[in-house]
């Protein structure tokens, strides 16, 4: 974070006061529009949605206060709790595997001698693509009868898999799509971190005769660890919000096997017009995320102190 001291003109005293005054004005004129915009469109809706947790809303009748009804309902709602554990599995597997593959790709790219720029750009492509469009691409790839994935399995003499319709495989398929789209982010962010590390340490280690694995284990990974903690955190935050791929690929099914939290919140409100309940599930997601990331960061601070 760079911030430079406010400019104080060296010009004549007469203009000094006017200049100071306009400088003070500018300070707020520049910043306030964005802040106000986010207060109105970001903070206010959240407060309003916190109010909705204690309300029910119907298109005709408007908002009625219902006290703790929504909260009581969510606490005994089996579908909500299984969505919680399912989402935790999804986030842990997706973020964990993306870390593993991303780290491998980053290290490979750093060690590669040719074509780095092109590789980097090509690998980054999935990140910007519309989730809805890529979900359909994967829907075609995973198609039980005509999809190439099952065709390749068949060529290798393996039985076909019910990718999007199996109890376990459907969730795994969603994780595959997440890995496909977001591993490049982990890889590129890790590579940027790697490149920001000083090269002198490596040179010293090589002079000392350390092998590739020793350098990786004793120097690179420990230096990289704080960055990896942050990168995984960013990925986990996003993985918690996953909605589009669920909507297109499985619709939460088979049954409720892929009903992840954001999708459940949507389905619970917009399909039954119970907006208060959706607001409650949404706030439960926010609270759950906050708790998990608090302990996540605390655990890593502990490790770093050791």
């Amino acid at each position, binding site marked *: *974070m760079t*911030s430079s001291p*406010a*400019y104080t003109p*060296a*010009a004549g005293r007469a203009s000094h006061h006017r200049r100071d005054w306009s400088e003070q004005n*500018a300070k707020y004129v*520049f910043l306030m*529009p*964005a802040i106000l*915009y986010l207060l109105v469109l*970001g903070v206010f*809706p*959240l407060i*309003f*949605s916190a109010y909705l947790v204690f309300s029910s809303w119907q298109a005709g009748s408007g908002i009625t206060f219902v006290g703790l009804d929504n909260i009581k309902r969510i606490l005994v709602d089996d579908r909500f709790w299984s969505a919680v554990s399912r989402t935790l599995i999804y986030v842990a597997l997706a973020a964990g595997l993306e870390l593993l593959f991303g780290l*491998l*790709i980053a*290290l*490979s790219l*750093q*060690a*590669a001698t040719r074509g780095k720029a092109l590789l980097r750009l*090509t*690998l*980054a*492509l999935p990140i*910007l693509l519309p989730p*809805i*469009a890529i979900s*359909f*691409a994967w829907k*075609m*790839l995973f*198609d039980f009868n*005509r999809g190439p994935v099952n*065709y390749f399995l068949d060529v290798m003499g393996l039985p076909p898999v019910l990718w999007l319709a199996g109890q376990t495989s459907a969730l795994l398929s969603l994780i595959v799509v997440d890995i*496909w789209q977001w591993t490049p982010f982990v890889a*590129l*962010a890790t590579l*940027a971190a790697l490149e*920001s590390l000083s090269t002198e340490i490596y040179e010293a280690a090589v002079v000392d005769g350390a092998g*590739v694995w020793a350098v990786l284990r004793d120097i*690179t990974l420990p230096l990289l660890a704080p*960055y990896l903690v*942050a*990168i995984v955190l*960013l990925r986990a*935050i996003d993985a918690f*919000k996953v909605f*589009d791929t669920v909507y*297109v690929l499985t*619709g939460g099914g088979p049954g409720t096997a892929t009903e992840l939290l*954001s999708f459940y*919140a*949507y389905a619970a409100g*917009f399909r039954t017009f119970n907006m208060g309940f*959706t607001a409650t599930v*949404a706030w439960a997601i*926010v609270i759950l995320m906050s708790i998990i990331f608090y302990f996540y960061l605390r655990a890593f601070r502990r490790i770093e102190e050791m």
Partner: protein
Amino acid sequence: MPATRNRALQVGIYLFLLIWLLFTLFPIYWIFVTSIKSAMAVQGPRPTFIPWVDFTPNLDAFKSIFGSGGGYGVSGLGNLTLLMRNSFVAAFTSALIAVVLGAMAAYALTRFRYRRWKNRDIAFWIVSQRMFPPVALVVPFYILFNRFDMLDRLSSLIIVYTAGSLPLVVWLLRDYFADLPIEIEEAAMVDGASRFGAFFRIALPLSLPGLVVAFLFAFVFAWNEFLLALTLTLDRAKTLPLQLAGNVSVQGTRYWDIAAQGLIVMAPPLLIALLLGRYLVRGLTLGAVK
């Protein structure tokens, strides 16, 4: 691990990268190749992979989705031009507003020092706006826009998309303005330019590449957005991803049509990614490493 000369290791590295490259490109290729297939090529006994070798390509799917007559089920796409216009207007306008507001805020955060609420905390608060799951905002937005009779309006989408991309824009541009040499602005102000003059005549032109990158990121964010479009629009303000998602409920596997639509939704972000080149990687990884 800097560039290594170990032969076996180099081979292993390139093999691994090659496999990941194929994994990355295959789904994109599959959308493309399916969009030029005939019904027969899609529904045949085994999947077809290569045009002119496996099957004869045609543009029937594109003709049918752009045509005005051939509608069926949800994907009656006689209004494809309207959908493209909606998507474009929503993405372009929201990105433009976000860049204007974001550039001002980013400039302020790098040029002034705030005391009661420190610069660092302001910047962090702005970025933290992105942490909340969109589904938490969907209900209040729906009820508020319903109350003011603004559902299914493009202006509503523009308003919420601007809020969605503003934090990212501020984050990207703050980094950009921090790297600009401050001396030029100081010199101009000594010569009598006001702070606004310094911003508009010096800082903005100098940061033009940064503004373009931020604009393109904001554009892609809005272009790709689905959940808010799903809940806030219905018909008039419908966007392309919403139309595409409508195919979920279409019976049968008209994959060639879906692929053609998917390709149209995918094309602008794909072009922008290639256009951005090295700025793409920089923009994507900025938040994580700094």
